[in-house]
């Protein structure tokens, strides 16, 4: 007996932080979550699995386009034609979505009730599926306690949307513990909510399959669902199914030994080449983080835009269909520290002192606030949340911005000749 366990599909949820630039693979990736889900359905049909479990967060809670639901129904229709039933459990996002209530699903899709724990049985396979959907987003009670006892002689599967012992990255909905799950007497726990793949073996096999498709730079690495094979009634084998169409990756490049922009670009180019050689399975959204104490620090301060363009050219040379540059983040540090600057006792050292003073110069800070006020006033709210500088300006904290800019500016000046 084999089935697919997936969760956190977040259909039509957009990818965050990707700036479109000429030749970026936009068309390929704007429908990433759909493509990933369709691939999963393809696999289900090709592999002729016995059933599919979706353990919550099918949609984004705030997403209102009914087309997403229709798309889901069509994919379920494909499963129906292949005679594959689906067991769908609603998570916190689904509880928030109005589509959940109105959508007319094909009859091969069985939804778990939100009022109480519900059990579906597949008598020919001797499988029992127990689950309870979220009635509302803020479900903080332990739902496991309401799940029924296992059915004797059946392979019992618990389907649950949970933060499991308070996973810090995710809202702590429907909390419960691993021990509690093991003690429930089920053979397999099909969990959802936490976006990273995890597995616990013990009295039962407990699995978070992770989300189907990474959507931002925090969700790096390959993503997908799991194919669960049950031999001899109870022996469970887990195979990961990677269906993501875009992989997120942070590429750290140490440029300590680089003297200038050209060196840095060359080094990044090498790193990208190696990366592509080793990771050519799916396109990647890549964040290039440049780090290290480097002579190039000052030059990079002034040439951030040019650096990005250079990196994009490199990517174009490699092939834009492989890579999408999310960001080129400069986190280098100057080669010489403050003490060394001061010991020079020249104008740059004076400038260093002056810039230190600038942090506490009220008139200057007020001036800066005045400079940025009309800008911040024009910026849309959702942008503010993604740019820490904007948050600082709104909070009147210009000092932190000055502190951030100072070292780069100073290095830039001392390397300006």
């Amino acid at each position: 007996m084999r089935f697919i366990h997936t969760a956190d599909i977040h259909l039509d949820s957009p990818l965050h932080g990707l700036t479109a630039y000429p030749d970026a693979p936009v068309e390929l990736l704007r429908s990433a979550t759909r493509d990933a889900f369709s691939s999963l359905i393809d696999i289900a049909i090709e592999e002729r699995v016995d059933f599919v479990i979706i353990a919550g967060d099918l949609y984004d809670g705030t997403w209102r386009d009914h087309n997403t639901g229709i798309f889901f129904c069509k994919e379920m229709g494909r499963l129906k034609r292949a005679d594959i039933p689906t067991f769908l459990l609603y998570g916190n996002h689904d509880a928030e979505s109005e589509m959940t209530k109105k959508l007319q699903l094909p009859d091969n899709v069985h939804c778990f009730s939100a009022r109480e724990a519900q059990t579906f049985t597949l008598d020919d396979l001797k499988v029992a599926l127990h689950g309870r959907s979220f009635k509302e987003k803020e479900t903080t009670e332990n739902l496991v306690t309401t799940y029924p006892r296992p059915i004797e002689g059946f392979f019992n599967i618990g389907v649950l949307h949970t933060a499991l012992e308070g996973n810090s990255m995710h809202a702590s909905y429907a909390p419960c513990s691993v021990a509690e799950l093991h003690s429930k007497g089920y053979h397999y726990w099909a969990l959802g909510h936490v976006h990273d793949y995890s597995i616990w073996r013990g009295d039962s096999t407990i699995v978070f399959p992770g989300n189907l498709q990474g959507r931002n730079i925090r969700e790096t690495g390959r993503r997908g669902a799991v194919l669960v094979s049950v031999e001899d009634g109870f022996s469970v084998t887990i195979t990961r199914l990677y269906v993501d169409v875009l992989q997120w990756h942070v590429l750290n490049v140490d440029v300590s030994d680089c003297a200038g922009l050209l060196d840095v670009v060359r080094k990044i180019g090498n790193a990208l080449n190696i990366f592509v050689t080793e990771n050519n399975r799916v396109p990647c959204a890549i964040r290039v983080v440049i780090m290290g104490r480097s002579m190039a620090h000052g030059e990079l301060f002034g040439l951030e835009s040019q650096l990005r363009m250079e990196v994009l050219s490199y990517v174009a040379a490699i092939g834009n269909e492989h890579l999408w540059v999310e960001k080129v983040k400069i986190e280098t540090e100057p080669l010489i520290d403050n003490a060394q600057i001061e010991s020079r006792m020249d104008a740059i050292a004076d400038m260093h002192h002056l810039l230190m003073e600038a942090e506490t110069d009220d008139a200057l800070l007020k001036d800066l606030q005045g400079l940025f006020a009309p800008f911040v006033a024009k910026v849309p709210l959702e942008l503010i949340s993604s740019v820490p500088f904007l948050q600082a300006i709104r909070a009147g904290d210009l000092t932190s911005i000055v502190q951030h800019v100072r070292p780069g500016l100073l290095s830039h000046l001392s390397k300006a000749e």
Partner: protein
Amino acid sequence: MRLHRLELIRYGKFTDAVIELPRAEKDCHFIVGPNEAGKSTSRAAIAELLFGMPRSSSLGFLHPQSELRLGAVIENSAGELAFHRTKNIKNSLRTPSDSPLSDDALAPFLGRVDKSFFEQMFSLDHTQLIRGGQDILDASKDVGQILFQSAAGIASLGRVRDALAEEADTLWGPRKSADRAYYIGAQRLDEANTELKDAIVRTKAWSEAHNILHNVEERFHAAQDSHRLLEIKRSQLERVRRTAPYLATLREKEAALGEFEDVIMLPPDAGAQLSNGQAELAAAEQLLQARRADVERLQNELNQIVVDEIILTFKKEIESLEAMCHRCRDHRQDLLLRGAEISSLLDEVKTASVQLGWPDNEESIRSLLPSSLVLRTVSNLIKERGALKQATVSDEKAVQRKQEEISLFESRLAAIPAIAVSPAIRTALAVAQTMRNTSTKQRTLAEAEYLAKHELDSAMQALGTWQHSAEKLKAMIVPSDERLADLKAERQRLVSAHRLAEQQFDEAQRRLSITTLETEQYSQIHRIVTSSEVTDARLSRDAAWTAVKIGEKSLEAGASEIDVAMQFADELVDAQLGCVTESTELQSLQHRLEREKADVEHQREMLSNKNKELSQFEKNWMTTEFAVELNGMLLDDVSAWLDRREVALAAVNSLDLKKRELLREMQTANEASEQLRSALTDAGVSIPDEAILDVLCSIAESHIRGVEANATQRESILQQIEQGKIDLAVLRSSAKESTDAYQQWQNEWKAVLSQAKLGEKIETIAGVEAAVELVSEIETKLVKVNEIRRDRINAMQVDLERLSTEAQHLVKAIDIALIGKEEHFVSGELSRRLAAALRAKQDAEHVHKELKAAHANLKEATVQVDSVAARIRPLLQMAGIADLVALLPLVERSDEKRGLLSAIETAKLNLSREGDGLTVAEIFSEVEATDVTNLQVTLAEVNALLSNSVKKQAELATERAVAEKTLAEISGRANAAIAEAKRQEALASMAEASERYIKVATATKLLRWAIDRYRDRKQGPMLSRAGTIFSRLTLGRFTKLIVDYDKEPLTLAALRTNGQVVEISGMSEGTRDQLYLALRLAAMELHLEQATALPFIADDLFVNFDDERAKAGIGELGEMSKQTQVIFFSHHSHMIPMVQEVLGSSVNIVQL
């Protein structure tokens, strides 16, 4: 730190090169060399020596990269360090013996300076000077920027700030612009928002669309049913309308058919056959008649034509005669002309023959003509003779010339002596040449020795009373700098403590005297009754009373005393009560006085202690070995004296060195001179007795040049003689060949002349040439005579004979009447007759052909008449009659019956077609059941209902299409998701632009703010110092630099001696460079006041300076060299005198 020596061990083009940079009063060194001398290499070497070599050096072209090596001796006040720098990544610092030094071994000398800072601050080349000058102009309205750039050693602050501001402007600005990154993103966001709004479909919308479609579909199906019923009704009515007329026709025609039962049915086309047969028969008979007439006419015409058959028999002969006549038309005239031509040619031949002495008849002439082979041989020999004769003569001349030439060379060779230069001279000269300028060098060395001695004397005198011999000075054990510094610091501490103790003691005494005075004055000013006074008064009172009480005194006697005592006591008490405050104050003063007295004592003791400590320290110092040796030199004087000792020792060393150098030079020069003199004398060269080395060199060089020139000349002449002999042999061989060839020719000539029979009288070559020409002419003309006779005259005579024969033959055969007529007449007559016979024959043939055709046509017309009659015959048989006229009525009746039958059939077919598949009987019953009279009205009503139904259905179909479209749009498409993705992309680009904008805008603002601050703080001292330097650099044309405080932003300008203010933009390029140099030097001076000094490297700074200003510049570098070592590179050797003039002749000049 200063460089004492720079060693270019393996570096660039250098191998083991050393640049000495000895310390002097002005630590300024001038390194000069032409282009390619290695000046830039040396400059690079200093930076790489101090801070390491790059991983890949461009200077590894001679030595392998891995073997590049530099060395140096550097020094500072603490001592000196000799080290090497290699290209190793680790342990690149080595000792001269190649042991590794720690990587930070140079730190005590360099402080915290890194390579980049060193290059910016301590290294100034012409490019930077020019750029600095230009940037001053760019920033001429920004004093702060000028000062900062100069002081920081960077020249691009303005560009940095402008670039940042420019970038900020491309990212965001208050004005919306399609060029700004933020607004590009914002525009995309707006578009994506609109797209999202259009694309998104709420669940409620889907439900509504679904319901609407369901509803409209139901209504549409109902309308379709209703329409279908109406269509059936209309169809039935239409059928009745269509079939009723056909039904009526059917009935009528069936009734009429009864009258034609007996009529014979003839074929449907019988009528046409009848009328066509009649017409065709008449036409065929008419044609038959016409054909018969044609035959008759043509037969007549043929009979009338006569043909001359005889003449036709001779057709070919007549035509041949005609052609022959035409050809021989001019022959008779031509025969006369040709005879005359032959006579003329023969006359010319005879004339020529006479010249040759030949007879004048044609036969004899022909027999005497020589063969053409002989004539050609004679001509060829004439042509060859000239060349052969010429060759013989010229070859003989060439042999003679060559012999003369060889003789000349031999005589020249004999005149040149054959001697060689002795090796001894060469060797001695090579040595002597290296010493050639020895007298100049000796003078320089002697001068240097004198100066060194002078310096030593000065240095010794500077040692004052503590002068010693050089050996003693060297041997003297001096305290280390650290020890001295410690001692000085200790003494300084003790002196300070002593001074402080003195001050504190003085202060305590001053406070005590003030307090004493205050106390005294207070007591004097205020009458203060003390308790003891009151007690005393009370005791006096009580004593007076006791005396009275015990009777010691009588009441009377004691009363007044008691009263006085009582009053006094009371007054005192009153007074005491009235001065409580003053009393307390006085007491406080007195307490203070006590404390201060104690303090004075304490300070006195402290002072005494400090005094003892100091005395002890001085005593200890005076007893040290060193101080004793220097006869009690004060500690404070020791450092200065030690420095002077160093100078003196350096001077001693320098003097020794100079002496040794001079001695060595002189010895070497004498040895070289003697060797050269001896060698020259041996070679027999005369030499003046007083000749110095330089003269000896010149004599030797001249001698060698002379000998070598002779040898070269002899060698050259010998080669020429050798070559001459070879050439002579060749020339002689050639001359012999020429003579032989000419002899051969003469033999041939004699032989051929006798064959040619040109007459013995002809002796000269020209005569033979003329005779050959005449013979050729005669031969040519005789040939022509033969050609005319053979080709022309004979041919024409043959033609004329043939013509006459042919004509006679024809006349006899055709018409004897023409006998005796001229051939041309005969030919013309016969030709005319032949043409007439031919024409008659042609006409007869044509008529005959027409007649044959007419017979054929006649036969055809007869057949056609028979054919028409045969076609009509069956009709007559069918009708049973023989006459064509009677047939016509029968045919008409038959056609009428056939028409009726056809109408009946047509009606049945129409009913079947229009009856929608119903039988005639069904149609009949349907028509019977319908009110045909109201049929149109009913039909119109049904049609109206149907129109309405169609309209309604169309409306519903549209409605359904709209509803379907609405629902189809919610078919799971990804438009909204794509729009949302675009939104996120736009937001990401806006975030990126925002972040960068805030960064660069902040940086711009910060930079501007910091520069302003910098100006506020540094402007004063730096401008003042730069002004002074600038004034000196411009030779006093400008007095100082000023800032115009009335302008915003503040502007830097310079003040001329005449009071004129010159802004930077008004300065020449050179003056701007001088201003930048002044600012840099001022900034450098200020920097050196507080930081470690490193050598200042100046590279060809004075390219835009005139000579006088260049001297001023050198002077400023000289001033700078008092603070730190200055190393000046230049490729202008003409600057050396300037440098020596400004900095003194002892300045260190290094020639690369």
